[in-house]
């Protein structure tokens, strides 16, 4: 990379590439700024009714109010805890189950129909059962998050395991590798890209699970704020919670993307 003897044409090419990257970032930020500005102006001049649509300044005010009341980080903390706990459990347990299903053809065949049905089932249908069985605390919401995310974790990971190059498997077999050696030396490293993809999908699903859980039953959290705000017609609160959610979900995705860069450099 550190070759300083580039031709003029190559330097021009690199420059063009860099300029394009900058332009894309500027456009991205620009769109966000434009939306916020239009939103604020429309609300200020009452082209739209700020009582229903809220506005950026109202959102900032609501955030300040929540912060002063000591509620901001309380609600964020609860939802974040539920989401991360659900995510971690779903990914780890999902991976373990996938390994188990991979190791035995027969077990996989036996469980296949159950997994397919569980995957198609809208998990929210289990809401009432979860409340009755587990209660109304945050464990119920974590449980909800886990069942929303885990099936996809299992299926994605297993697909990754099963799509490992046949020739490489033959090679391991020809070397007389044990099942365990095949798993640790080949299957797990070869399916690393699938794992990262699974993490990305699981982040999104975990947020769906935790917010859905809070919609059904909760006394705190961002999902709770949204439902509560809707019920008492405080749309500033609804908008604020939604925007905070956007930031948090984006941040969590960003962390996974960073891990990906580190692992696949």
């Amino acid at each position: 990379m550190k070759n300083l003897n580039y031709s003029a044409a190559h330097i021009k090419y690199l420059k063009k590439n860099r300029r394009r990257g900058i332009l894309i970032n500027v456009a991205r930020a620009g769109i966000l700024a434009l939306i916020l500005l239009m939103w604020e102006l429309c609300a200020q001049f009452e082209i739209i009714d700020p009582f229903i649509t809220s506005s950026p300044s109202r959102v900032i005010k609501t955030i300040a109010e929540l912060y002063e009341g000591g509620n901001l980080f309380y609600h964020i903390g609860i939802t974040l805890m539920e989401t991360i706990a659900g995510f971690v459990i779903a990914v780890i347990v999902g991976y373990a189950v996938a390994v188990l299903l991979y190791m035995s053809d027969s077990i996989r065949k036996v469980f296949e129909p159950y997994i397919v049905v569980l995957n198609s089932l809208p998990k929210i249908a289990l809401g009432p059962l979860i409340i009755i069985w587990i209660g109304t605390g945050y464990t119920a919401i974590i449980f909800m998050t886990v069942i929303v995310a885990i099936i996809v974790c299992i299926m994605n990971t297993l697909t990754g395991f099963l799509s490992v190059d046949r020739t490489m498997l033959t090679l391991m077999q020809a070397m007389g590798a044990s099942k365990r050696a095949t798993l640790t030396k080949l299957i797990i490293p070869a399916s690393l890209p699938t794992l990262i993809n699974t993490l990305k999908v699981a982040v999104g699903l975990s947020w769906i699970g935790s917010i859905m859980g809070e919609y059904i039953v909760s006394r705190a959290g961002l999902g709770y704020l949204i439902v509560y705000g809707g019920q008492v017609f405080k749309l500033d609160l609804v908008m604020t919670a939604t925007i905070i959610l956007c930031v948090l979900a984006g941040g969590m995705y960003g962390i996974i993307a960073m891990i990906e860069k580190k692992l696949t450099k």
Partner: protein
Amino acid sequence: MILRFEDVGYTYHTLSGETEAVKGLNFGILRGQFVAVIGPSGCGKSTILSLAAGLIAPSSGRVVRENAEFGYMLQRDALFPWRTVEGNLFLPLEVKGRNTRAMRENALSLAEKYGLKDFLKKKPSELSGGMRQRVALIRTLAAQPDILLLDEPFSALDYQTRLEVCDDVQGIIKGEQKTALLVTHDISEAIALSDKVIVLSARPARVVAEHTIDFGGNIPKRRRECGEFAATFEKLRCELGI
């Protein structure tokens, strides 16, 4: 004899029926010999290697191995892209639980001897097709096998690379004084590389003919230049029924 097939038969079972891949197969390989097996495509050539390595047991007859260690080289190099060249060379040692300092040093000295020294820390994706196949061969040799089983190891390469790698591999195997059993559908490759060519029939595979090749020394390039090359080629072609 390091390896002997005695009246070996093998039948595949799949849900759609059974297939007799090999029937009444008899041949033997001497220590240090380079034997090529050719046959019409789909005649069960790979099955023979699996039988030789003991990955599958014959349905009838027996395969006699004179306590020899086997090493496999496949059609595609199957180098693990997440490991460096060096990491790939150590793979069989790790898998076979022989990852000792001496074995690793032996692998590295082989790599050095055959021109891989500067590539050890590189990833396979940075290597050319021919170089990758060379790494695959050194990987196979790293576990110090007595007999190498080569399953059309050049068929995934383009023609020029193929000629080059073919000579390269033969040179290394002869240099290390290893025994080799090569299956291929390429007649000229079989003649250029081996001491003995075994011609198989269509499925179920039996031995049609055996030829000892001894012209042109042991150098593939010189053999191809010999007059006998074309004659042998024609003879084998006839026997294959092409």
